[in-house]
């Protein structure tokens, strides 16, 4: 049932109830007369019409958005004033009825005053009910809105979590390092240092919205050098990054996500391994980043592409339509992740926004 139906149902039922009660009380205290019933019904019809008009007024002038302190005096004054109008109608109706039935009608001041007071109260209660229901509804809506917002925030947090380090990588790296400590202690130590750098970056960037591409690429370099320990000669990396691109701001872990994806599908899943190609440059005021790996897109039927979906969502949230991420299959068995976002330095982006903790990695 929508709100309009609910209003009509309550309005009709409420006034009918009012009429029945009025007639029953009237009949109980006076003797039954058709004239009295007709007059009571006429009064109720006028009340019905007046309150309906009042509703129109309330909606038109946005009373429902007023605070209680603003609303209450308005309701009281209008009730009193409308009761006078109602009383006027009622008298006219009585006079007409008396003329028709040629029975004289006496209008006594005391009765009129009591009726005026009664009807003011009735109108006041009507308004209280009408506005009360709306307030309750609005409150509920606001509550739902709040829950929705909280859920959305949780979602965003989860997404952020998912874009962090892959535990599979972490444990494999630890396993390789353990073997390396015996085989080549110096390289083992280096690997521990790199792992520390990776952990630091991924922990700190949890709080930051943007990082420089330089910090991100240093992180990716550490990550790839650990994966190179793991995969031996199965993994090679080919870097070509332009200097001015490195000063631009990117959402942290976004290149990492693409590289990790590339390693997973283009190296780990292939017996002969493969090459990860990293490119970054500026083009028409856009920062372009490409991550390429060997293989085909549909080679792995179990892939959910969750990492890519998350990355795309983050880009949309941060940059809107100014950013894009596509995954294409190039010539000679190459998969290319192509990232494009507005070229801005970290300072430019933080100047146009309220200050946020930005993270610059130092080595």
């Amino acid at each position, binding site marked *: 049932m929508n709100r309009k139906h609910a209003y009509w149902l309550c309005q009709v039922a409420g006034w009918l109830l009012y009429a029945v009660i009025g007639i029953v009380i009237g009949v109980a205290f006076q003797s039954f007369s058709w004239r009295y019933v007709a007059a009571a019904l006429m009064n109720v019809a006028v009340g019905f019409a007046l309150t309906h008009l009042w509703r129109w007024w309330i909606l038109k002038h946005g009373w429902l958005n007023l605070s209680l302190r603003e609303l209450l005096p308005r309701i009281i004054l209008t009730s009193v004033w409308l009761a006078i109008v109602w009383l006027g109608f009622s008298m006219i109706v009585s006079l007409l009825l008396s003329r028709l039935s040629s029975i004289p009608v006496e209008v006594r001041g005391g009765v009129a005053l009591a009726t005026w007071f009664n009807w003011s109260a009735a109108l006041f209660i009507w308004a209280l009910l009408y506005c009360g229901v709306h307030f309750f509804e609005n409150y509920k809506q606001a509550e739902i809105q709040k829950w929705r917002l909280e859920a959305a925030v949780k979602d965003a947090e989860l997404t952020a979590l998912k874009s962090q380090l892959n*535990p*599979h990588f*972490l*444990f*494999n790296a*630890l*396993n*390789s390092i*353990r*073997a*390396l400590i*015996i*085989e080549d202690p110096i390289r083992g130590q280096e690997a521990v240092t790199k792992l520390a750098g990776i952990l630091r970056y991924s922990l700190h960037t949890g709080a930051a919205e943007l990082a420089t591409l330089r910090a991100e690429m240093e992180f990716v370099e550490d990550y790839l050098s650990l994966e190179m*320990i*793991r*995969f*031996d000669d199965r993994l090679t990396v080919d870097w070509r990054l332009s200097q001015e691109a490195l000063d631009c701001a990117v959402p942290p872990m976004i290149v990492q996500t693409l590289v990790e994806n590339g390693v997973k599908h283009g190296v*780990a*899943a*292939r*017996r002969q391994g493969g090459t990860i190609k990293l490119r970054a440059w500026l083009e028409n005021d856009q920062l372009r980043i490409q991550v390429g790996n060997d293989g085909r897109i549909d080679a792995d039927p179990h892939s959910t592409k969750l990492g890519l979906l998350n990355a795309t969502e983050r880009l949309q949230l941060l940059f809107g339509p100014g950013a894009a991420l596509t995954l294409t299959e190039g010539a000679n068995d190459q998969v290319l992740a192509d990232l494009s976002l507005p070229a801005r330095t970290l300072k430019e982006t933080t100047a146009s926004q309220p200050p946020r903790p930005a993270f610059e990695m130092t080595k």
Partner: protein
Amino acid sequence: MMRVLIVDDERLARNELRRLLASFPALSIVGEAHDADEAALLLISLQPDLLFLDIQMPGRNVFDWLALLERAPLVIFTTAYDQYAVSAFEVNALDYLLKPIELARLRRAIQKVLLERSEAAPGTAPLTQNDQVFVREGERCWFVKLANVRLLESEGNYTRLYFDDLRPLISRSLNLLAARLDPQTFFRASRKHIVNLHWIERISPSVRGGLTLWISGGLEVEVSRRQSQAFKERKSL
């Protein structure tokens, strides 16, 4: 001495495992494989008793690969982090180890294996009830000891195995299995069925002049007339 084959695509991971296994004199490492295909060749040439098998490797999925083996070797799975695989195998995997592997944890796994293997059979002999097969159906996997298989039922090129309260399909024909299964335990009742003799609860004559075998778990198998004769002779009925 137990013959061990290490299967892992990462050199350092293999080295690490080799180093850890050095403290177990009951085991001897006979080889290392980089992937499932290499492991398949080494299984035949080296006849290992036990595999340390990494779940994530390039090329073929290890579970599909295991399901294709006629006789599943004893397997300890190793993985860096794969909750799915770990939970899927909770049912009856011999064991799985999380990398980096803890020595105490490895010791427990090996003790388990040593208990298990006292009954293992040599590679080319027929499949006895002490052998196991690896069964995969959809996302679920089992190591099934043939002693627990009560009935094998032909379904075209596939065979349905009845064990515990499960009945998954394996991708081998009943005829192929009939040629490999030890006749001491497994009896060919008809073109459609092979029965594990240890699970027969009751035998009764059937309306067609043959026999009906009642197998525990409420299974009922009709024995063809010719095979009924063979069955009677065998059981000297």
